[in-house]
């Protein structure tokens, strides 16, 4: 075998390995659609997405996932609102303010937090946060939107903090020097130069944090309470989509309507996370051109 042929073989090997992950992802999507789409022969898309009642085991059953979508969206949005300031300020502190020793400590703690199994966080929500919420606000149950949002925020913080930190770290030193040389203080430099320059990376971080939160299953299964109804207050229980799938899949007979409805719920989740990722990608590309002041 000459050198050219070897090159070709090596290229083919790498290509096929790279292909494996794409292929598997493709197969997952195909099976998701194959199991989910048949539902729409019996239930209209409109009734499915915007139906107010999720009674999959009643006779006749109703498969309206609007309460589940609302549940998912509300815990995700609330979790993001909590996680954004914590995540970004942590990132700023680590990248710009902290002395070297503390910087390392904080970074490792954040990584540790990212590595915590979600079931452990869910457990924490159940045995610590839930009783506390119940006692403090005198609620019938501590397993509710607030609890789920807090725990999801805890999960989104490491994602937001570490990606934002990379973005802040990548802000050219020249910008900061220019700012200091014009008589700006550290906090003025951070607020007016560093954060605006890192904004695309920070936005990407936030969206990836959100997509992590909306797809998270174990936490919402354990602490969101599981009520498939439109919530009236932040202390009501909800049943986000992933929790519904995880809880019911075991009981749904194979290829029954209920089974198909759960797959169709998975499709909705898939499109939401896909949209988040596309937006994140778009933002990070859009701002790339404005890059640094090179020649």
């Amino acid at each position, binding site marked *: 075998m000459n050198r050219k042929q070897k090159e070709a073989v090596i290229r083919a090997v790498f290509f096929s390995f790279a292909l494996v992950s794409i292929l598997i992802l493709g197969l997952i999507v195909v099976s998701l659609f194959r199991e989910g789409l048949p539902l729409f022969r019996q239930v209209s898309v409109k009734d499915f997405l915007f139906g107010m009642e999720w009674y999959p085991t009643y006779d006749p059953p109703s498969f309206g996932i609007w309460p589940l979508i609302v549940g998912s969206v509300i815990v995700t949005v609330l979790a993001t609102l909590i996680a954004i300031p914590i995540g970004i300020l942590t990132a700023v502190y680590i990248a710009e303010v902290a002395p070297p020793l503390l910087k390392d400590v904080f970074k490792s703690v954040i990584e540790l937090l990212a590595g915590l199994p979600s079931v452990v966080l869910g457990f924490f929500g159940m045995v610590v946060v839930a009783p506390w919420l119940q006692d403090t606000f005198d609620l019938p149950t501590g397993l509710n939107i607030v609890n789920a949002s807090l725990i999801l925020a805890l999960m989104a913080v490491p994602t937001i903090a570490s990606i934002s930190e990379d973005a802040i770290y990548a802000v050219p030193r020249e910008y900061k*020097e220019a700012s200091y040389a014009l008589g700006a203080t550290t906090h003025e430099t951070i607020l007016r130069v560093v954060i605006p*320059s890192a904004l695309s990376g920070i936005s990407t971080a936030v969206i990836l944090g959100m997509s992590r939160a909306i797809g998270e299953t174990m936490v919402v299964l354990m602490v969101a309470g599981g009520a498939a109804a439109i919530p009236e207050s932040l202390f009501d229980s909800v049943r986000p989509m992933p929790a519904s799938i995880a809880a019911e899949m075991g009981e749904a007979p194979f290829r029954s309507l209920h089974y198909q409805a759960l797959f169709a719920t998975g499709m909705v989740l898939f499109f939401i996370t896909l949209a988040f990722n596309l937006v994140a990608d778009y933002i990070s590309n859009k701002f790339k051109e404005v890059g640094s002041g090179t020649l």
Partner: protein
Amino acid sequence: MVNQEDRIIIRTENVNFYYGEFQALTDVSMAFETNRVTALIGPSGCGKSTLLRLLNRMNDLIDGCRVEGRILFEGRNIYEPDVDPVEVRRRIGMVFQKPNPFPKSIFNNITYGPRLAGVSGKADLEALVERSLRQAVLWDEVKDILGQSAMMLSGGQQQRLCIARALAMKPDILLMDEPTSALDPISTAKIEELIEELKKTYTIIIVTHNMQQAARVSDFTGFFYLGKMIEFNVTEKIFTKPDMKQTEDYITGRFG
């Protein structure tokens, strides 16, 4: 010393500077005259940029560095504990080696410093932008695109924008750290003309690797080698009849 005492705006007295254990400057004493251009020359790593950054306390931003000696700006040691480095930097501006406009509009680049210093009011800011850009001979090229990103400008224009941005603070001294080393010859010539013009109003201290540039633009030249100031004199003297052999060797290209 070569300078006239009453014209001194800033002087260093027995300055030693350390990055951690490494001594970057040894016993540097020199005085800079107002409304003159002083060039600092010497081979890479000789400490000339370090000295420049000491003059407006930019070295404060580096961890683990230490200054000994005094730097007197208008008679006051800027390294006294009660001196606010922010105040120092407002009065002693700096232009860097690589053009570094902010990724903001041209207008907002110029107004960044003045706004922080408390200048407000649309008319005042607009007047300031025009004045600064005119001083930096950039006004005619950008007057119609003030709202556009500074990133769209060419390298030479970006560097003049950075000069305009520094001038907008109305500083007393302008420090320039190899301001043309990243520019093409035409842009370099424009900046050199600009320096000639600016010294009527400002005191300029410029670090350069380009000896012709030092000879062209400066009134005084200091030659640095291995962290020490070897020779400091009128530029013409340095370039025609230097007192020290090391200076002569460097200038004639025998090393460096």
